[in-house]
């Protein structure tokens, strides 16, 4: 089966500085890919190439995804723009009942649907962005450091939610993280980036790869995944 999104030998430079060097990767349907790497490794650039926002200098991007959901690293809400949480959603999807249901699914209760976006807490805003990313039931879900700025409890509950949603939607996922206390064990594929792809493979392989250890060191705690649901075919796809 053809991969959902594919990069072949993609390179990108900014001002003579090579940021991405010969990146080749596949995002498969239904698979979770985690992209890790230190600051300045080119993660955001790679994400923007995968999203089609940035044209590579060399190499090509092939996308067979009909719809992509994107949760940006952060969303700056200008106070001058009066926008309720619900309106934020209906800007992306005209059916407000479906928008309400999606908000409820990510844990944002009815009472705050009419609240101005800029009054939401950090955690609520992350969930709102997640809701907007999934409102079209995308084939590919791209999450750029989704738990950034949350406390530990908030991080793990958001990760749990993302896990559940991925199982429900059965979509391909690309998750970016510079934080290694992360869902590596939930991933089908981990890509360790540092300009070029240092190593790539199953979480266990990557964890013991010399180039991974060279960048991150061996003493890395790995977030333990809570298996409170199954990934089998019995999952609902409504």
């Amino acid at each position, binding site marked *: 089966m053809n991969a959902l999104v594919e990069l072949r030998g993609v390179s990108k430079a900014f001002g003579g500085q090579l940021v991405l060097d010969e990146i080749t990767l596949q995002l498969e349907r239904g698979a979770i890919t985690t992209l890790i790497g230190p600051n300045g490794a080119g993660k955001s650039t790679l994400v923007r190439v995968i999203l089609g926002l940035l044209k590579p200098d060399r190499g090509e991007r092939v996308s067979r995804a009909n719809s992509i959901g*994107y949760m940006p690293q952060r969303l700056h809400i*200008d106070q001058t723009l009066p*926008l309720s949480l619900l309106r934020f959603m209906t800007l*992306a999807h005209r059916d407000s009942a479906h928008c309400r249901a999606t908000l409820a699914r990510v844990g944002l209760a009815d009472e705050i649907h009419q609240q101005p976006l800029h009054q939401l807490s950090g955690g609520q805003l992350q969930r709102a962005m997640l809701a907007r990313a999934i409102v079209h039931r995308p084939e590919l879900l791209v999450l750029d450091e989704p738990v950034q700025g949350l406390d530990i409890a908030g991080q793990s509950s958001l990760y749990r939610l993302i896990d559940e949603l991925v199982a429900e939607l059965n979509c391909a996922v690309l998750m970016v993280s510079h934080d290694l206390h992360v869902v590596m064990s939930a991933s089908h594929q981990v890509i360790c980036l540092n300009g070029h792809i240092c190593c790539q493979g199953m979480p266990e392989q990557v964890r013991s790869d010399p180039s991974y250890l060279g960048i991150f060191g061996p003493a890395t705690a790995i977030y333990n995944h809570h298996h409170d649901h199954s990934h089998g075919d019995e999952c609902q796809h409504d």
Partner: protein
Amino acid sequence: MFELLATALGGGLAVALVAGPLGCFVVWRRMAYFGDTLAHSALLGVALSVFFSLNLSVATALVPLAIALLLVWLEQRGGLPLDTLLGILSHSALAAGLVLVALIGELRVDLMALLFGDLLAITRAELWLIVGVAVVILALLALLWRPLINITLNAELAAVEGTAVTAVRSALMVATALLIAIAMKIVGVMLITALLIIPAAAARRLSTTPEQMALWASLLACLSVIGGTAMAWQADTPVGPSVVVVASALFVVATALRRS
């Protein structure tokens, strides 16, 4: 007398209606300085049109458009921050316009009218042109309303969701340049941005949705035009500044009425 006043008010209200929603985008997208730059370059357009005997309306619309494109190009080349680029373009265009106006010589251009507007001097033909352009801009804004809000919210998110960001952004730029061409008659080059941002800023206090804010801004801009024209008629003050003074007063009232 009545017809003169009716023509003036008709033109002023047409511009005010458009200035409402467009002004909201200027506020939301923090384009106030950008609006100034385009407005100042419109003066250069007027000077060029007189100097080379070109059509006035076309020149005053085309020069801001050219400046907008130049700005996009300069920004992509990088190296200087946007506000510096805007400052260079804005004041270069204004200075070049003023120099050119001086070179043209005696009284062929009413500089005060260009700088501060002369609503009471607009002709019937100009009125229809203003109304026509206003209708085109309003139609454009109505058609592109959602994509415009989406690119304002976050351009990359909008692009991933399938919005043609560059096209929508360009449409907004064209609409702004067109409005400046017609608003110059009303409030003049120096005060166009005021008519865009003051009613919109006042409307922010009264609104909980983008649409409400656009409607309030239109309403407040219309009230400013009516009040300013009345003031100019009664007290023989210049129309453009009078309109802006009324707008500022409405802003103060709206701020005082503030509901959070």
